[in-house]
């Protein structure tokens, strides 16, 4: 499945933007701050219903427009479908599939998955643990509705439980019920996360190996509740529940004092190790970039494996951050048939043979 046409009206800085992307590589080239990233964001919205910028939806609407209209034509082996999203000034999103209104993005019958790579993603290995939790959870949500609903329920449970901990006296009995909820949903999220990471890990480490010869990447899942249980071990949900339950007892006083939930997957981390050394402390800038790149390439592969669909790859201004060997890894995906849309300030980052086949769209500077 490919994107054959994109059309935006009243989106960010665009009154009207129309592009018919190439089946392989489309390069949006132009100076900084002309709105190239807005195109990437719009495509991410159409494919995943979310934006890496986490905006208020109304911010996506152009300042003088009455609504933002995003429209995408998908070509699935010659069968065309049209997906349309409207964002209103009331911060609401609505969806149409082949002209029919659909309630909620999850009711759209045909969705093209996407993988987005922005300069912020380069902080995957060394940035805060939250980045790594988000990387695996975002992937899970794109692959499974169950994963998505577990993640939402878990986030909500943590918010409710933290509120109860702040009013400890009045909510003592409520807290017992919320403990059960935390263990039940938390263990489920932990299990799903570990399962997905166990599939991501060999693909990511193998890609890393081809990019950085002589270096071995190892991925682990760090969880206080699970302690030293090896990441590769297949756990039953009951095992995780028991581990969370006993950790919760041990940390009860600490939780009461700090008035916040200290046990659960929202405190876990994904650890990258290069030749046995923890990337959080020791990775060079080059190694960090290679980890991020290997992870993104692995996302493409795992979506192909699990969803049995080739995602569209959206690269926002990352070419300038990567050296030629690493850029080559991305362009290999293009050659393997992954539809790729790239923004850049300079087409010089692309090999001449690739450029010759690409569709190049100039985004002119303002004024």
């Amino acid at each position, binding site marked *: 499945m490919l994107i054959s046409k994109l059309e935006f009206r009243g989106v960010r800085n665009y009154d009207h933007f129309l592009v018919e992307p190439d089946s392989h590589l489309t390069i949006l080239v132009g100076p900084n701050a002309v709105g190239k990233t807005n195109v990437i964001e719009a495509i991410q919205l159409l494919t995943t219903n979310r934006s890496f910028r986490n905006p208020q939806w109304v911010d996506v609407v152009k300042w003088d427009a009455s609504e933002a209209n995003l429209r995408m034509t998908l070509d699935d082996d010659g069968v065309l479908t049209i997906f349309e999203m409207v964002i209103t000034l009331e911060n609401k999103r609505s969806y149409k599939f082949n002209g029919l209104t659909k309630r909620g993005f999850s009711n759209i019958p045909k969705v093209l998955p996407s993988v987005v790579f922005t300069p912020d993603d380069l902080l995957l290995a060394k940035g805060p643990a939250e980045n790594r939790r988000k990387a695996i959870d975002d992937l899970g949500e794109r692959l499974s509705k*169950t994963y998505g609903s577990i993640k939402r*329920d878990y986030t909500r449970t943590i918010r409710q439980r933290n509120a109860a901990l702040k009013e400890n006296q009045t909510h003592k*009995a409520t807290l017992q*019920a919320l403990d059960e909820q935390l263990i039940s949903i938390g263990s489920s999220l932990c299990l799903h996360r570990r399962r997905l990471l166990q599939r991501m890990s060999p693909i990511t480490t193998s890609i890393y190996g081809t990019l950085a010869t002589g270096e071995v990447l190892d991925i682990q899942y760090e969880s206080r509740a699970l302690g030293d249980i090896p990441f590769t071990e297949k756990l039953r949900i009951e095992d995780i529940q028991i581990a969370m339950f006993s950790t919760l007892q041990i940390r009860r006083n600490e939780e009461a004092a700090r008035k916040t939930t200290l046990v659960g997957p929202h405190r876990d981390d994904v650890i990258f190790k290069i030749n046995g050394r923890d990337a959080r402390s020791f990775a060079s800038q080059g190694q960090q970039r290679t980890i991020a790149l290997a992870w993104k390439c692995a996302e493409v592969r795992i979506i192909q494996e699990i969803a049995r669909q080739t995602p569209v790859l959206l690269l926002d201004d990352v070419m300038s951050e990567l050296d030629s060997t690493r850029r080559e890894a991305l362009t290999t995906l293009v050659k393997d048939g992954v539809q790729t849309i790239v923004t850049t300030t300079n087409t010089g980052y692309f090999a001449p043979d690739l450029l010759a086949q690409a569709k190049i769209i100039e985004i002119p500077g303002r004024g």
Partner: protein
Amino acid sequence: MPFYAAPIVRLLEELERLPGIGPKSAQRLAFHILRADEQSAGRLADAIVDVKRSIHFCAQCFNFAEDDLCEICSDSKRDASIVCVVEEPRDVVAIERTGEFRGLYHVLQGAISPIDGIGPEQLRVRELVDRIGKGGIDELIVATDPNVEGETTALYVARLAKPLGVRVTRIASGLPVGGDLEYADEVTLGRALEARREM
């Protein structure tokens, strides 16, 4: 906002207090009322006052009632040994529509949500315990919404009721994940009632 005469401003303010009504909808409603004849405006005002005067909460189940007991509680053909615990009166309506349930209800009038400062004390939980204490109830079916707050409330109710010797069950999935009971279609809800699980 342009300047309106004081009575219009007052009406707009009151309308905006209603759930789901923003400034724009309030204006639309206000202008509709202004354009309507005095009789229909009077009927609307009477209906609002009348519903507040005549409808109160059932003394037993806390559903809406015209008399001391609601129609369901005062129906002798219903099975008083099974009580379905729900969040809101609208849930009673949803379950009644399935025609599958012949027991009584208990309306908690909300769900536990510490974020909103709602704990068991703000709900009709104590009244439920009292009701069980009076005897005659064998089973509670907890049909709170299938979301975090509904689940937490269900767990709380189960912890409270089980030591009192009552069987506690939870209506099973089949409901859309994260959705409200209100939106579940009747067939799904009927099936969910059949396939309840022990808590």
